[in-house]
C-alpha cells in the first residue's frame, strides 16, 4: 500500500517537471569516503548510512536543472567544499559582513542572539523558553526535537517517512541532500491532538545546528492540528553559499497543518530548498512563505492532495532586490476527487532584481471535481527590475474548476499623488503602497512576523525611493 502511493506521487511529480535534457557531468568532488565520514560523525544507524550512499549514487547520475535561474556560479566540481562536515564556519564576529550586522541592529535583535544567528558564539537565552514549551508538548504526547535526536529516539518513525515524499532521485539537490543532510526539526503530533501554540524553530535555531542541509520532517496524525514556524526574518549568514534543505510534511486524514516560514538568506546564498506536503482525506495544509535575501532562490513548495477532499492554501511573498534572482512559486497536485487549492502570491522586484513566479497545477485523471484558484501579482519598483509569471496548468481530471489571475504592475503614480495630497511624504507613500501590496500575505503571518516582515520591507526600500 505504502509503496503504491509513493509511486503514484512520484509519477505525478515527474509529470509536472520538464524532462531533464542536459548531458551527464561527473562531479569529482564528492566521494563515498566523505559520506562515510559524515555518517560516522553523526552516529547514523546503518540504514541511514546506506541511504546516504544510495543518494550519493543518484547524485552522481543526475545533472543540474536546465530551467530556472542561472546557478552556474555553483562549482559542482568543488561540491565537497560545501558539504565537508568541518567546512569553514565563521567563528569570529568580526568576519560577519557589515551589511548583516546592520540588519540585525535595525531589526532590534539582541547582541547574544545576533551572534547565534550568525552562527557565531554560544546559544542564547531562548533555550529556556524552548525547554518550557518542550514540557507542555511532552504532556500532549507531541514530539518536537532535532532530526539527530529523532533518529535515535524515534528511529522507526523517521525510517518510515524520511525522504519518501522528496525522494533523492527527485532532482540533483534532493540527492545531494539525501547524501549529506544534517540538522533540522522533527515534529510528531499524535492523532486528535491540537497543539495550540505555534512551534517556532527560531527558538532553537542554533541548538539544532541549523545549516545548509537541514531536514524538516513533520507528521500530523489524523484530526490533529499544528502550526509550525520555521526560520526568522534575520538574515542567516553562512560562509559557504549553498543551501539545499528539505521539508517533508505528512498531513493525515482530517488533520490541519500550517507551515509558516520567512527566509532571509545572506546575499551570497544559493537557496535550493525542496518542500513538499502529502495531504490526506479532508486534511488541510497551509503554507505561508516569505522569501527575502539570497543570491538565487529556487523554491516551489508542493502540495500533493492525495486523499478525497484534501485542501491546500498557499500564500507567498517574494522580494528581489539588487543582484538577486528569486524564482519562487508553488506546485499543487490534485490526485484525488474533490480536492481544492488556493494559491495567492505577491512578488516585488527593485533595483535590478529579478522575481519570477512559477507554478504548476496538475489535476490527475483520478481527481474529478478538483478546484484550484491561482492569484499571482507582481510589482516592479523601477524600470531596471524584472518580473515574470510562469503558471503551468495540466488538467486531466473531469469537471475541474480552475481559475487563474495574474497581474504585473508598477506603483500607481495616481495613488502616490493621492497619499501625498493627504500630507504623507513621497517615500512613506510608496512604502505604504508596497506594504499594502503584500498586506494579504502579511495578515496571514503571526503578528510578530508580520511586524518583522514590514521592517524587512522598509529596510529593503530604504534609499531606493
Amino acid at each position, binding site marked *: 500500500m505504502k509503496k503504491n502511493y509513493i509511486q503514484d506521487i512520484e509519477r505525478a511529480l515527474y509529470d509536472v517537471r520538464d524532462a531533464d535534457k542536459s548531458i551527464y557531468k561527473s562531479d569529482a568532488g564528492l566521494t563515498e569516503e566523505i559520506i562515510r565520514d559524515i555518517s560516522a560523525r553523526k552516529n547514523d544507524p546503518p540504514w541511514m548510512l546506506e541511504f546516504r550512499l544510495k543518494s550519493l549514487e543518484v547524485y552522481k547520475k543526475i545533472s543540474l536543472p536546465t530551467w530556472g535561474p542561472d546557478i552556474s556560479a555553483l562549482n559542482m566540481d568543488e561540491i565537497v567544499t560545501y558539504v565537508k562536515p568541518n567546512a569553514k564556519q565563521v567563528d569570529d564576529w568580526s568576519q560577519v559582513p557589515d551589511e548583516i550586522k546592520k540588519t540585525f541592529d535595525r531589526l532590534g535583535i539582541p547582541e547574544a542572539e545576533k551572534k547565534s544567528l550568525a552562527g557565531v558564539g554560544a546559544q542564547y537565552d531562548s533555550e529556556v523558553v524552548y525547554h518550557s514549551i518542550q514540557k507542555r508538548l511532552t504532556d500532549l504526547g507531541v514530539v518536537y526535537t532535532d532530526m539527530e535526536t529523532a533518529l535515535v529516539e524515534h528511529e522507526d518513525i523517521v525510517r518510515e517517512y524520511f525522504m519518501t515524499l522528496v525522494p533523492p532521485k527527485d532532482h540533483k539537490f534532493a540527492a545531494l541532500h539525501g547524501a549529506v543532510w544534517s540538522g533540522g526539526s522533527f515534529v510528531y503530533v499524535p492523532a486528535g491532538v491540537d497543539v495550540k501554540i505555534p512551534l517556532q524553530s527560531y527558538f532553537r535555531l542554533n541548538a539544532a545546528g541549523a545549516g545548509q542541509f537541514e531536514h524538516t520532517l513533520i507528521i500530523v496524525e489524523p484530526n490533529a492540528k499544528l502550526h509550525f514556524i520555521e526560520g526568522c526574518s534575520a538574515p542567516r549568514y553562512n560562509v559557504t553559499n549553498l543551501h539545499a534543505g528539505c521539508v517533508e510534511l505528512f498531513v493525515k486524514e482530517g488533520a490541519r497543518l500550517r507551515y509558516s516560514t520567512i527566509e532571509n538568506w545572506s546575499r551570497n546564498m544559493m537557496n535550493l530548498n525542496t518542500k513538499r506536503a502529502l495531504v490526506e482525506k479532508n486534511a488541510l495544509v497551509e503554507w505561508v512563505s516569505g522569501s527575502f535575501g539570497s543570491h538565487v532562490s529556487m523554491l516551489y513548495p508542493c502540495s500533493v492532495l492525495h486523499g478525497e477532499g484534501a485542501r491546500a492554501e498557499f500564500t507567498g511573498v517574494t522580494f528581489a532586490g539588487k543582484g538577486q534572482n528569486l524564482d519562487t512559486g508553488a506546485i499543487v497536485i490534485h490526485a484525488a476527487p474533490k480536492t481544492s487549492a488556493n494559491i495567492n502570491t505577491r512578488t516585488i522586484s527593485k533595483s535590478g532584481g529579478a522575481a519570477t513566479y512559477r507554478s504548476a497545477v496538475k489535476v490527475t485523471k483520478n481527481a474529478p471535481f478538483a478546484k484550484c484558484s491561482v492569484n499571482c501579482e507582481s510589482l516592479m519598483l523601477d524600470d531596471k527590475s524584472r518580473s515574470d509569471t510562469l503558471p503551468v496548468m495540466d488538467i486531466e481530471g473531469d469537471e475541474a474548476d480552475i481559475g487563474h489571475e495574474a497581474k504585473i504592475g508598477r506603483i500607481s503614480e495616481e495613488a502616490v*499623488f493621492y497619499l501625498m495630497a*493627504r*500630507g504623507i511624504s*513621497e517615500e512613506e*507613500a510608496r512604502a*505604504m*503602497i508596497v*506594504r*499594502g*501590496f503584500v498586506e494579504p500575505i502579511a495578515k496571514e503571518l503571526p503578528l510578530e512576523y508580520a511586524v518583522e516582515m514590514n521592517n524587512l520591507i522598509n529596510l529593503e526600500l530604504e534609499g531606493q525611493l
Partner: protein
Amino acid sequence: MLEIKNLHAAAGDKEILRGVNLSVGRGEVHVILGPNGSGKSTLMNVILGHPKYQITGGEIFFDGEDLTALKTFERARRGIFLSFQNPEEIPGITVENMLRTAKQSVTGEKIKILQFHKELLALMKDLQISAEYANRYMNVGFSGGEKKRNEILQLLTLQPKLALLDETDSGLDVDAVEIVSAGVAKFHNEKNSCIIITHNAQILKHLPVNRAHIFLNGRIVRSGGAELVGEVSEKGYAPFEVES
C-alpha cells in the same frame, strides 16, 4: 489666503489652463462653475502640484508663500486639502491606517491610536458611514457615493485651512448630498476657506457663498456673487461664451 495670478499650465503639449486669476480670503467660500472639460479639475491638481501638469506661466501663493517650489505633501502640510473628483483605490491600506498616518504627517504629532479610533468612528457616524469601513481598504470596492463621503471624512479628520472640493456632490443620491453638504458646513468656519466645484447648487444650501466664478476654456471669465449660480442653472454657459 490663496492668490493665483495669470496661471498657465499644460499636460505635455496640451495647454489646459490659460491665465487663471483667483483670490480667496480667509473664511470665504468660493464656487467654481464650468462646463465639462474646461479645466476645473486641472486647476485643483495644479494647486496641489500634480506631476502630470507643468506650470508654463503665472504664480500661486498660499499664505504669502510661493507654492510652486513645494512638493505635494508639503502643500498638504501647509493646510491644503483636495476632495478628489475620482478618489483613488489603494489596496492593502485601510481607511483608518491611512487617515492616522495622514493626520500624523499633517500635524507632526504622534497620534494616540485609541483616541484617534474613537474620534474617527464618531465622524463616520455623522457621515452615516458604517464603522466597518474603517477597516476596509481605501476606496477599494466603494460605490461612487461612498467614495465621496469618504473624502469628506478625510476633510473633517485633517481639518485643513483650505478645502478644494471637486464635484464632491456628483453621483450622490438626495440624502447623500444632504449628508455631504452638512459635513462641509460643519467643517467651514471663519478661519478656513472652501473652493467648491459643482454642477449642482444643492451642496451650497448650508453654506454662505461669498463669490462664484464662471470657468470656461481654461480661465475664469466672470466672477460675481452667489447669484451667478442661479444664472447658470437657468441659462447654461452660452451667455458667458462671448466673454471667453
